[in-house]
């Protein structure tokens, strides 16, 4: 468990950096972060399932400019740890809810990070700006973001690992009901995504073709 936690904390720092400060290669997307964490801690199916649910909630969120938005990367790491600690339908449901709530906490922390960055970066109006000042501010801000992600995963993991298994045992729904609940919840943000993409008015035929192919895939299965 200690090694798993250490790996998850490291992953938390990396996905926070990827999502906010460095690269945006999208390993910070919840599906990827969940799958990676699940593979790292030996719960690959739980990680992917939690990541997929969180991803469906996150897809309609556009990370534009200085807007405040939920940060689901570190939250997916936390949720995967929780689901790994409490396998089964109850663990999945509680881990997804924990991930959704924690994504809001992570998103709020980005605001504070950016306020701190504002204090660290050199102000041209306050005096000459040297290369050293720019380099120092950049590396300090990157390090701070990594620490932010690691800290968020550490605190979230304590909640997830300690609390989720206790309550998951009392979860009364079986798997189909739990999946139904999560699917019904995730459908609303997917609808919002459809609107972001242009809406049915613009892509009615394309969307309908997709639904037909999806139905054929379900029947074929």
């Amino acid at each position, binding site marked *: 468990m200690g090694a798993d936690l250490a790996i998850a904390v490291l992953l938390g720092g990396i996905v926070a950096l990827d999502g906010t*400060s*460095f690269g*945006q*290669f*999208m390993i910070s*997307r919840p599906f*990827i972060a969940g799958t990676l964490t699940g593979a790292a801690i030996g719960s690959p199916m739980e990680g992917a*399932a939690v990541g*997929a649910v969180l*991803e*469906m*909630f996150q*897809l309609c969120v*556009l990370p*534009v*400019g*200085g807007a405040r938005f939920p940060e689901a990367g570190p939250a997916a790491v936390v949720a995967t740890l929780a689901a790994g600690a409490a396998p089964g339908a*109850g663990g999945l*449901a*509680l881990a*997804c*809810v924990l991930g959704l709530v924690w994504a809001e906490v992570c998103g709020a922390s980005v605001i504070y990070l950016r306020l701190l960055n504002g204090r*660290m*970066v*050199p102000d*041209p109006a306050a005096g*000459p*700006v*040297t*290369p050293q000042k720019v*380099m120092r*501010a*950049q590396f300090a801000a990157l390090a701070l973001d990594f620490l932010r992600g690691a800290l968020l995963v550490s605190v979230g993991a304590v909640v997830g690992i300690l609390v989720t298994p206790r309550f998951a045992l009392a*979860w009364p*729904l079986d798997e*189909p009901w739990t*999946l*139904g*609940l*999560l*699917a019904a*919840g*995730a*459908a*609303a943000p997917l*609808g*919002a*995504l*459809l*609107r972001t*993409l*242009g*809406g049915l008015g613009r*892509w009615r035929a*394309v*969307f309908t*073709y*997709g*639904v037909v192919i*999806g139905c054929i895939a379900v029947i074929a299965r």
Partner: protein
Amino acid sequence: MSRPTPSIPWAVLLRSFAIQGSWNYRTMLGSGFAFALLPVLREAYREDDAGLREAIGRHSDLFNSHPYLAPMALGAVAALERDRAASQLIERFKAAVRGPLGALGDRLVWAAWLPATLLLALVLYSAGVAPWAAAVAFLLVYNVGHLGLRIWGFRLGLKVRNLLGEPLKNAGLVRLGDLAAAAATFLLGVLVPLLLLSGIVSGARLLWGFAILGALSMALGAYHGAVTRKAAVVLLCFATFAILGYGLGR
């Protein structure tokens, strides 16, 4: 003036991956822009320390753009600084491109390419492909577009300098964004039956009641937009705690 070292522009491109590192509400990408541009500035002002400080000060000021299209502005400014173009010209150029590069990137990447590639991964996963394979497929496809856009933009900026308007208009990025949005909509259509009729996780057949509830909540989302996400999160949390309370009380 001595001929610039060929590797220096590529050092700028590499540093551009960290351009968002010090994003803040005062200068936005400004400090990151100066950080990325440092190799070129150091070379251009090799024997002019005061000029170097003045240039770094200028570039540390307010700037914003989509992170993937910022290399385009960086390439153009790097070329202008190498030629020691007038600072007013560079400032005017930066002020002129920051809005369009931000809006274009948001529309092309965040609102089209990213959802399209993520939906592809979710469709693969829900159709029974191994999670790691779906994840790798997403990372590969998405980052081909991501890195391609960064490199193409940087090279274009280096080549055309402050005359970005026409080549950018002719590049067809808006058309590409529309194509990606259409692909994303198609994949969303494929995902919906897989999610509501078959279950995203295990392929277990869902209850019809939830499938109908899901279709209704999707229609609400499509009608009201992103605000329904918050409502869905709150309702799901409430439902989960209510069900858990029922389970604990049994």
